[in-house]
């Protein structure tokens, strides 16, 4: 026997995630991978390709599109999926998009409810998916810290945090009733820093707006709201900034940063004094807003 039989923490996490992805593929009839175009999705897709190599991923990617994503995200999504030969499903809540649903009009919670949660649940029903693989991490948010790897949702997509199945060893219980579905979270044990280190180690492509650049923003309550050139609000200014996580344009703030390379981002994240979702308006509305949204079916 030669060499060391110790795995680095990234290789441990990779192996665990691949095992979970293969369990999902083996135990469910019709799984789907929820692809949100962000860095976690990029890592998730890489892991899924690894899990079934040299075969193809045995499930499609699905992007639940609110219509409010950054133009760079749409461009990246389409070229990325074409390049890796993935089957991409795009689902939108056209009814509410048509009504012009907007966080500043309907309120952040109602807007998310229609365009994200509602669209996701409709899509799961429409395609008959029995498992949806998501890139959520337990470290992200305190209610997510209590999430299982295989998380059962009832026929209305709702999460019941007080009634979760115990989950032991690496034995995941895939059994559900008709109409129920499972959200599977292969990245449960990854942190933001792990994600960035893995992206660097593996050379995984990500949306360019994670890197710092001069951008037109409006400062509001310490959050930098990106502005569309030509439609900028009064008081908008140019600022060197980047996005730490990606969501919808009206609700995703940038952070001041000069980190223009992966090494710089990793150094910044490792020394970060604020949590990753600090710029996500959706989590800031109340003390348990994420838990509430998850109970309603948000993933």
């Amino acid at each position: 026997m030669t060499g060391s039989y110790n795995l680095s923490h990234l290789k441990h996490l990779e192996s665990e995630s691949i095992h979970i992805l293969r369990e999902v593929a083996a135990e469910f009839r019709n799984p789907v991978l929820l692809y949100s175009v962000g860095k976690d999705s990029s890592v998730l897709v890489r892991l899924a390709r690894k899990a079934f190599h040299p075969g193809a991923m045995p499930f499609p990617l699905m992007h639940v599109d609110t219509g409010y994503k950054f133009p760079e995200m749409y461009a990246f999504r389409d070229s990325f999926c074409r390049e890796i030969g993935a089957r991409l499903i795009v689902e939108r809540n056209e009814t509410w998009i048509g009504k012009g649903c907007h966080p500043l009009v309907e309120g952040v919670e109602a807007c998310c409810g229609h365009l994200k949660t509602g669209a996701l649940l409709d899509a799961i029903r429409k395609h008959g998916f029995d498992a949806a693989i998501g890139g959520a991490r337990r470290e992200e948010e305190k209610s997510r810290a209590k999430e299982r790897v295989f998380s059962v949702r009832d026929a209305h997509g709702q999460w019941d945090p007080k009634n979760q199945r115990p989950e032991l060893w690496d034995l995941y219980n895939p059994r559900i009733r008709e109409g129920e579905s499972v959200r599977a979270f292969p990245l449960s044990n990854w942190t933001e820093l792990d994600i960035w280190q893995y992206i660097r180690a593996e050379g995984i492509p990500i949306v360019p707006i994670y890197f710092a650049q001069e951008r037109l923003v409006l400062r509001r309550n310490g959050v930098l709201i990106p502005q569309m050139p030509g439609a900028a609000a009064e008081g908008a200014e140019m600022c060197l900034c980047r996005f730490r996580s990606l969501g919808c344009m009206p609700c995703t703030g940038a952070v001041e940063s000069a980190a223009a390379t992966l090494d710089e981002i990793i150094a910044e994240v490792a020394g970060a004094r604020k949590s990753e979702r600090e710029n996500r308006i959706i989590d800031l509305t109340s003390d348990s807003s994420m838990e509430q949204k998850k109970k309603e079916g948000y993933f």
Partner: protein
Amino acid sequence: MDVEKSLLRIVTTGSVDDGKSTLMGRLLFETKSIFEDQFEAIRKTSAKRGQQDVDLSLLLDGLAAEREQAITIDVAYRYFETPTRKFIIADCPGHEQYTRNMVTGASTADCAIVLIDARNGVLTQSRRHGFILSLLQVPHVLVVVNKMDQAGFDPAVYRGIVKAYEAYARRLELRDLAFMPVSALQGDNVAARSDRMPWYEGPTLLQYLETLHVNPEQNLIDFRFPVQGVIRPGQDFRGFSGRIASGAIRPGEEILVLPSGRRSTVKAIETFDGDLPEAFAPQSVVLTLADEIDVSRGCMLVRPRNLPLVGNHLDAVLCWMDDAPLDPGTQYLLKHTTQTVKALVSKLVYRFDVNTLHRESAARLELNDLARVELQTTLPLFFDPYKLNRATGSFILIDPVSNRTVAAGMIRGQCAPPPGPKEAPPAQAHSPNTFARQANLPREAREARNGHGAAVLWFTGLSGAGKTTLGRALERALHQRGCQTTLLDGDSLRQGLCRDLGFSREDRTENIRRCGEVARLFFDSGHIVICTFISPIAKDRDSVRSLIAEGRFFEVHVDCPIEVCITRDPNGLYGNALTGKIRDFTGISADYEPPPAPEVLARTDRDPPERIVADLVRALERAALIPPGTPAP
């Protein structure tokens, strides 16, 4: 930044109010794993509640109900890292009603932290937790005596607790037990050495966690590879995916497939990043084999000279985790590695009183109970005792109706075979007052008188494939050689013993179960039993196999393309099936599951019956069940 960090999984347990959340909050705070915005949020909440210090426990109680009741309900996972190591903490609630969560957290832990309140000493809960950690074989256990500030940093208090817990732990199987005095609230001995406890000379909590030997039990000897799936992108590639449960493997090494027993060698270890010269636990890989042999999900690849135990009668410890108690009549689903089988808890041997460690007889098993039990599974499992191998020695039970995970199980080993010539019957023991008796004359005595061994030849295949023709010819050949034979034919049994059964899946299963039991009676009487049944369901055939002694069951796949069977159609059945006059007809309106690894493959479309019969006779000769001789024509 150094990416090559190691990973340590920790479980934390303690009674209510031992200050566990505060300790975890302190660890996160000291390792700068708490963010300003999170800290600000809990500072506000603490102030709102009129607390002077920032209540670090608020960081961990993620659910609204937990914050309202100021208790921890569910396991919460936390992450922090130091320059050399990443830590995953499963933070488990301490109250008794949530013990199942502790078992959950402990199942994957390398290290456990048991919190004891210095003022209260060793409570029932601390004992219970130690016992559970011992059952789950968590490699390292650290007892943290907390709230030393409120005990005046008195060494006598600390030493008293150490002594009491050590006395208790002597009766457990903890492999590595350490103690440490801290004050989580004020940070003493968490990250920085306390100058208020100079009498303590050991490491701080963070030092201890950072220097703990990871993977002390990494098992590199016993290669176990539960197959998760088959990767088959095209005709020229067939690989088996899985996560190595234990051991290591290299290309060129010989493997054996369970349950078929087929052997091959590893051709390559494939990954997205290229082939590997060697793979070891817990890597996820794809293995390709040198030979085209049947392998599917639920199979296990092992080394031919290092086999796990194989059996369907398990001796195990169960932790019951559901509100509904154990129902001895329910066939639960048992998930073990990548295999899910049905299982009946056939015997409740005893229940543990976790406070006294006494064993007590019990009629029921309820939420949070721990008990030693016996289980019968419908198909054999390939396992190791949990103590030797956590990955292949653990299982969960799932309720088939509620779908809930109702129990966690740790296998101790095979059950001792009950008195009698053979292992006990599987599944439903619905005749409560019957007893397995020692056979009057052992089979071996009958075999010695007959001059040949007993065996069961099980012919399976489509209607019209030639089972009956072959079975009858084989019986005549064996009879000529002086063998005791019995021929069991599907149609004959369906006209008598099984005339109450139809052709639904359930009825087919029951039909085969009865036929299997009859075959076993003749087998135990020393006969060579020839069975000709369509028997389309693989699991049904496997359960018959499990009734018969190892090496004595010959599955003969009578294989013939259905088009040929239709043209033969000896009884005009296909004609009626094709026009829908007969329903549930195998091959037409019901599935046939071909055996993945039959002992004999008989191709009746290709080979004449005489030749197949001669092959079968030779197979019995090779197995030394009948004496060698000139094969009958």
